[in-house]
Every structure is written in structure tokens, then in C-alpha cells.
């Protein structure tokens, strides 16, 4: 079994190295993007091997799915030509190799230092406070209770990115596809129930098993992107709906802030959740965060401000 596991790991590592190499250095732009999308997929297998199922879910949804969608959409906007990196000049070669050696040795040194850190890290303390956190899954507890500050800032960063994207100009109207595609609305209609059902399931699972707001929001966002592609989301561009859209985009951050301020009032510490209310509060924050993340991913995809 261990020989088999080793073979599996070696195959994964070799595939990842090859894919990353191609994604970085392939002369053809589309090829690089395709390699990167496959890199994300294989990466989620690597997360499974490392027992990081939450991350595997998030990588499958965000890394391979949404990032790939964003890249493909950007690719269609850029001219097909260009994108060929200049060849190395002869004099540059030693410099390049020196840079590679420095980087790799620095990373190895970093890994070595980190290897020396006291094990098993914070697994023990987290397991101690887990009964008071309101959920049964350690990663969800860390994300939404113990280190909720990180998650709040993360959603804020995402909102800031949406503001940046929307401030660049009006939303770009897409080019017509090369031909009529009757299959697309059918695909959207068939898959859409699942795009709603699966996030709900992931949210529900998040309290006791891998899952939670981020994969749920990402899947919902991918469903939204599919609807945008099928031309089914007109309300986003409707000028009268803009206040509602903005409110929904900010809902995750606002609810999170409200919970944090309530903690400040009740327990005297920002973002401190009282034991009795922790479970329901985490669920409420997770639902709002998932909806906001989904809408923000859709908002990225418009490449500009709608309704302008």
C-alpha cells in the first residue's frame, strides 16, 4: 500500500511540475491558460492527498472553476497575438540560473525553518476550545469564531476588489458567440437546480465536516456566471436594481460587522461570540457570506460597473 501511495504521490508531483512549467513558459497564451486550469484540478487531488478536504473543495470551486472562468473571459478580450515572452539573451543566462538557485534555496531554507517549529502546532488548543465554538468542525470553528477577524478582513478585501473592478468603467458587453448555441440555455436550465442545491448542502455540512461558506459561495457564484453566459441575468444591469445589488454585495461584510459589534457590546471583545448563540450566529454569518461571495464573483465577471 505504501509503495502504491508513493507512486501516486510521485505521479501527482510530476504532473504538477510539468503543468506549472507549461503554464508559466508555454509560448502560446491559450495553452498556458489551459495548462493552468488543469493545474488547479490536479492541485485539488494533491490537497486530498494532504488530508486538506476543505481546501480541496475550495480549490475545485475557486481555483479550477472561477479563476479559470475569469481567465477564459479575459482571454477572449485580448488580441490573439502577442504574449510571446522574449527569449533569453546569452548574457542573461548565468543571472537566471543564479536567481533560480537563490529562490529554490531560500524556499528550502524556509521550509527547513518551518519544519523545526514545535509540532503539532495549534491542533491541541483548537481541539480544547472546539466545544465552545458552536460548530463541530475545526476549520470552520477557526474561520468563523476563533480567527473570525481574518475572515472579516478577507471578505472586505474581496469587496474592495469589486470596487476596484467596477471603478474602471462600465461593464463590457460581451462579443457574440461564433454561432447560435441552443445547448447553452438547456445546460443552464438542467444544471441550475444543482447549483442551488449543492451550496445549500455544503453550508449545512460545514458545521460538522468539510464544507462551509467559501466553497458554497464559489459554487453559487459559478452558477451565476453560467446564468450570465446564457444571458439570463438582466436585472444586474437594471438601473433601478442597483441599490439592491450593492446592498447584497455588502451583506456579508455588514452582517459580520454587526455580529462583531454585538460581541463588543455583550462580551466586551470585538467578534467574541457568546457560547449559547455561537451556533446560530455562525450559520447566519455563513449564509450571508456565501451569498455575498457568490455575488462578488459574478461582479468580477462583468469586468466593469453594470447599469452605467
Amino acid at each position: 500500500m505504501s509503495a502504491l501511495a508513493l507512486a501516486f504521490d510521485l505521479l501527482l508531483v510530476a504532473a504538477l511540475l510539468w503543468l506549472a512549467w507549461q503554464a508559466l513558459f508555454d509560448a502560446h497564451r491559450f495553452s498556458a491558460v489551459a495548462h493552468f486550469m488543469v493545474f488547479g484540478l490536479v492541485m485539488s487531488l494533491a490537497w486530498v492527498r494532504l488530508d486538506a478536504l476543505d481546501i480541496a473543495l475550495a480549490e475545485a470551486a475557486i481555483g479550477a472553476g472561477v479563476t479559470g472562468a475569469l481567465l477564459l473571459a479575459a482571454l477572449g478580450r485580448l488580441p490573439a497575438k502577442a504574449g510571446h515572452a522574449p527569449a533569453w539573451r546569452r548574457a542573461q543566462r548565468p543571472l537566471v540560473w543564479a536567481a533560480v538557485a537563490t529562490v529554490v534555496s531560500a524556499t528550502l531554507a524556509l521550509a527547513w525553518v518551518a519544519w523545526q517549529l514545535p509540532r503539532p502546532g495549534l491542533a491541541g488548543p483548537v481541539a480544547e476550545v472546539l466545544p465552545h465554538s458552536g460548530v463541530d468542525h475545526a476549520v470552520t470553528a477557526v474561520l468563523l469564531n476563533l480567527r473570525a477577524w481574518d475572515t472579516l478582513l478577507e471578505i472586505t478585501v474581496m469587496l474592495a476588489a469589486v470596487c476596484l473592478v467596477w471603478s474602471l468603467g462600465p461593464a463590457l458587453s460581451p462579443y457574440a458567440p461564433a454561432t447560435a448555441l441552443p445547448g447553452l440555455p438547456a445546460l443552464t436550465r438542467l444544471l441550475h437546480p444543482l447549483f442551488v442545491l449543492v451550496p445549500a448542502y455544503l453550508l449545512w455540512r460545514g458545521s460538522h465536516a468539510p464544507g462551509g461558506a467559501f466553497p458554497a459561495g464559489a459554487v453559487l457564484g459559478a452558477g451565476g456566471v453560467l446564468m450570465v453566459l446564457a444571458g439570463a441575468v438582466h436585472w444586474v444591469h437594471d438601473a433601478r436594481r442597483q441599490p439592491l445589488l450593492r446592498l447584497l454585495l455588502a451583506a456579508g461584510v455588514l452582517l459580520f460587522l454587526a455580529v462583531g459589534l454585538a460581541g463588543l457590546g455583550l462580551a466586551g471583545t470585538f467578534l467574541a461570540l457568546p457560547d449559547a448563540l455561537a451556533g446560530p450566529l455562525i450559520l447566519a454569518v455563513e449564509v450571508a457570506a456565501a451569498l455575498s461571495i457568490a455575488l462578488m464573483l459574478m461582479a468580477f465577471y462583468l469586468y466593469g460597473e453594470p447599469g452605467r
Partner: protein
Amino acid sequence: MSALYLLLAAALAGMALVGLFRAADLLRRVLALNVLASAIFLLLVALARTTEGIDPLPHAMVLTGIVVAVSTTAAVLALTVQAQERRRHREEEP
């Protein structure tokens, strides 16, 4: 086994940095940034996995990092695309 993935993370980080500095094309820089982020995540997660159990804190950090990475990617891609649109308008108008 963790050692194998640590080595992979080191190699990926080195490749991504070289790619990042070498790329003239903005799209390719975005790819390099994403590969670099993956390498760092891999390092964190491989270190979180010990014989005594799994440290949930790096996992939560990496989850946060993945979402921040996609936000960065979206912002940079939007800048790239809008710059290209402006360039095309300039070329068409005069």
C-alpha cells in the same frame, strides 16, 4: 511524504518567481502569481500535517488565501482587459 510535497512547493515557488519576473505579458504574470500562491499554500498545508494530527489553523489561513488570490486575479485581469479596451478605442477613433 510531506517532504515530497515540501520539495514540490519549493520548486513551484522558484519556477513561479522566475516566470513572474520574466513575463512581459500581463496575463502570464497573473498565472505566475497564482502558481506562486499555490506553492505557498502547499508549503503551509504540508507543514500542517504531522503524525500527531492536523493543525487546522494553516488550513483556515489557506482557505482565506485562496479567496484573496481570486480577488487579486480578478482585479488584475480587469485592469488588463480595460487597458486593452482603451487601447483599441484609441486605435479606432483617430
